[in-house]
């Protein structure tokens, strides 16, 4: 088995375990008479499905080492899958399943300095967009084609950084001390700008280089990145404003509050 396939199998196991844990959490809540919204469950599993599609895409289309394919994978893993995943609100599901003491521990962790720094929109944006500049404008991408470990790390980074960024900008999960809407909107503006500039730079200067891809293919990949990224960022902006409006309309409490999680969020806050 190739290193790529090993990684895909490992990730599939991880995705499956996450799905099982989520489903178990939903069932457990249901047994206690606290129903969980179906829309959230469907959304979360849609996200997991997009992850699997992204991971196995090279095997599905029987093409490897193609920059255009890699770009579609990048869009699926790092930009599109995180949207339905955060809408599934796995954080809230976890909190509702934890005993009161556990909730305190998780909230304590979330307000701790290291985690607050890690989940800050600026950190998330830099680690997400910065890694892409590093990957495509240096020989790192070439290295990832030849080294299975680097390849695995790149894909894992797409998933983790993409999720973190989406969550930090517009995640509906309850979180203590979320930065202001103005700050999150500014970060989204700069990150979307950085993504668009990277797409144009790749197109203009034919990055990444020496990969064996024809110039037209590199340019096609750069355009897919540009327009695909646009769509994902548009959806993220809609998500952010939908939260802002929900909060605005109520004039109190969080968006999660308006989404029908009255008791638990009131308790958490």
């Amino acid at each position, binding site marked *: 088995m190739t290193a790529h396939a090993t990684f895909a199998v490992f990730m599939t196991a991880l995705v499956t375990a996450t799905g099982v844990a989520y489903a178990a959490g939903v069932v457990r809540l249901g047994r206690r008479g606290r129903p969980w919204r179906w829309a959230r469950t469907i959304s979360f599993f849609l996200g997991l499905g997009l992850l699997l599609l992204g991971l196995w895409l090279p095997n599905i289309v029987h093409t490897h080492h193609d920059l255009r394919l890699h770009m579609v994978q990048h869009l699926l893993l790092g930009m599109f899958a995180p949207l339905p995943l955060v809408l599934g609100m796995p954080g809230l599901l976890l909190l509702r399943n934890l005993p009161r003491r556990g909730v305190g521990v998780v909230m304590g962790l979330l307000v701790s300095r290291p985690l607050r720094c890690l989940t800050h929109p600026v950190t998330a944006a830099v680690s997400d967009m910065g890694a892409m500049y590093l990957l495509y404008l240096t020989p790192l991408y070439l290295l990832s084609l030849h080294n299975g470990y680097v390849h695995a790390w790149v894909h894992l980074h797409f998933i983790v950084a993409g999720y973190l960024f989406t969550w930090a900008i517009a995640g509906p999960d309850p979180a203590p001390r979320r930065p202001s809407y103005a700050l999150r909107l500014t970060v989204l*503006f700069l990150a979307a*700008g950085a993504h*668009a*500039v990277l797409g*144009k730079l790749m197109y*203009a200067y034919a990055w990444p280089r020496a990969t064996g891809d024809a110039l037209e293919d590199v340019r096609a990949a750069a355009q897919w990145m540009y327009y695909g990224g646009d769509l994902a960022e548009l959806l993220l*902006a809609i998500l952010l*404003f939908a939260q802002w409006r929900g909060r*605005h309309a109520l004039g109190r409490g969080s968006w999660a509050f308006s989404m029908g999680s009255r008791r638990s969020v009131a308790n958490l806050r």
Partner: protein
Amino acid sequence: MAAASAEAETKRSAWVAALIGIGLMAAVDEIVFHQLLGWHHFYDQATPAIGLLSDGLLHSAELIAIVAGFFLFSDMRRRGTLAPLHAWAGFFLGAGGFQLFDGIVDHKILRIHQVRYGVDLLPYDLAWNGAGLALLIVGLLLLRRARAA
């Protein structure tokens, strides 16, 4: 007090609609001229680096302007504080202002790309900026009417 807040709401109506005007004009530019007609290039080998940077940030701003505009607009409508005439004025001012900005700053000063390639540019530039100016004038006339009302 009530008069001051009413004035704030009319101003807000104009600004919110201006965001929609900017976003829609930018979307028309992207969809009609980039995608359908293929007149503009994604990149034309002549765009300087600063042009790419400004292009990326402007693009991101357009994207957010259109989403922000629609949400703020629907919020004002729901609260019944939207001043329709001011909103129309703002919409035309935003659309015309963007068109003119794109035609002069993006095309001519930053040279991000041109309206069309392989043709005499002058009539295209005149039509582009003329259209922007016309929209801007419509916006100004509407604003005058809105203020008089």
